[in-house]
């Protein structure tokens, strides 16, 4: 991928953007790579030379990289920072770079930094659970140490001290506890991911259709149903269930205040529409959907 510098930002930022501070080491898959959708990975590989991104659009990844560089310098007794561990599964080497490990008398607590949104910490993120539980397995298998806790240190980029919603984080740095899996569950998950990646690599080499991204892979938002009345700009009610919407519409209609109808607002694959994967323009799955909707 070519990194451009249209706005002439300082060269060290460009160097950082080019990923010189981050490497998956001598492994076949990094943990995050293993978790990523195979279709996205194969398209990124195929179109690597054609992809272009300007450094000015990479603020959050840059800050993420910068944090890793800073963390490597901060030595604190009882804490291990920025350690990359390697493990073989079915002849494939997997590596994970663990941001922080707190050594306690009872075992290790793994901490991972995330620049994220308040919304993310208010909702369960299964990918955090998957990522940190692979780290847990790495620590247990490679270092032979018991892991007693998994935590996300969320650095909330859109924090507002005036937001009083239930579950809203109290501070811009917020710790999230992640459920622990047993090693069998983690191994099952790794095997599943290896299989889909192998399948997609072969499909790419054989010029076959790549496995499709799932709604979760595509960050698909939910389809919602807005009960509307003629002459009114805003919805009377917005619900997630079509049957509920019909019931509300019937009740509103019976009031005789005007024509009532349901506006179906289809879910949107936000990763595709925002091109967060970086390959939306080459993706037949997404492009065919756009074609159909046109």
């Amino acid at each position: 991928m070519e990194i451009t510098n249209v706005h002439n930002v300082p060269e060290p930022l460009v160097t950082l953007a080019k990923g010189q501070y981050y490497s998956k080491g001598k492994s076949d898959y990094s943990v995050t790579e293993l978790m990523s959708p195979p279709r996205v990975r194969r398209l990124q590989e195929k179109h690597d030379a054609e992809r272009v991104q300007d450094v000015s659009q990479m603020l959050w990844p840059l800050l993420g990289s910068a944090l890793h560089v800073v963390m490597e310098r901060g030595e604190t007794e009882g804490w291990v920072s920025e350690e990359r561990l390697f493990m073989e599964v079915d002849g494939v080497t997997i590596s994970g770079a663990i941001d922080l490990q707190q050594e306690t008398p009872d075992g290790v607590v793994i901490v991972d930094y995330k620049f994220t949104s308040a919304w993310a910490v208010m909702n369960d993120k299964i990918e955090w659970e998957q990522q940190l539980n692979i780290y847990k397995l790495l620590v247990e298998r490679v270092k032979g140490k018991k892991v007693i806790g998994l935590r996300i240190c969320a650095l909330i980029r859109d924090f507002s001290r005036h937001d009083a919603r239930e579950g809203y984080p109290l501070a811009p740095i917020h710790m999230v506890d992640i459920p622990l899996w047993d090693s069998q569950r983690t191994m099952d998950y790794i095997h599943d991911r290896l299989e889909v990646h192998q399948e997609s690599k072969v499909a790419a080499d054989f010029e076959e259709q790549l496995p499709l991204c799932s709604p979760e892979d595509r960050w698909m938002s939910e389809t919602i149903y807005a009960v509307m009345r003629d002459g009114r700009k805003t919805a009377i009610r917005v619900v997630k269930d079509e049957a509920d919407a019909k019931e509300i519409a019937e009740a509103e209609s019976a009031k005789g205040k005007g024509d009532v109808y349901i506006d179906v607002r289809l879910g949107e694959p936000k990763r595709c529409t925002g091109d967060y994967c970086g390959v939306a323009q080459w993706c037949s799955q997404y492009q065919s959907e756009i074609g159909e909707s046109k």
Partner: protein
Amino acid sequence: MNPNELLKVNVNDHTEKKNGLTYLSWAWAWAKVLESDPTANYEVKTFVDNDLNGAVVPYMNLGNSCMVWVTVTIFGKPITCQLPVLDYRNKCIATPNAFDINTSIMRCLVKGIALHGLGLYIYAGEDLPMDAEPVTVKASDSSGAVTASVDLDTGDDAANAKLFADGMIEYSSHVTDVKGLNSYWTSNKRQLDRLKDKHPDLYADVLAKFSALKKQLAQPKE
């Protein structure tokens, strides 16, 4: 202990599995050899490397890969064996470092000891561990065998590529399902990518064979 008795020693408690292959501890194996024959010795062959201004090195530089040689003498009988310098996936390393070379020499020593009988049962044929994943191991071993017999004679990359391609096709007959085919293909991905780049005709042959096989395996069984 004589050579026949060495053949019968159970070495299972002193092995380690890596990447689906079984490795015998060189320290334990050598201790066992000395226990059997205190006069036993081994010699690492050295070569002049013209790429390093004529430096004497403990490996044979074959251009795109390297080979180490060890002669193990037990009960007065010297046996020489060779081993390509391999990475953790059992693939040849073009520019090995000191650690890679040392690892290969010690593995070659174990192989030489096995040729005298100790731990020989964990090998099948030339150097095929019996209990590794069948498909991956055969592919890996075919590359090892290729390097051993072809590079030395010719240093010919094209001949190596042909043998690798033939090996891929030959061992594809062991694949029984699509999952196995995917695993076999991706286990050899780096070499296949190199083949595609350097020898596209051979790659096309392998690809055609595997594409057809995949279609066949994907058919529902009656």
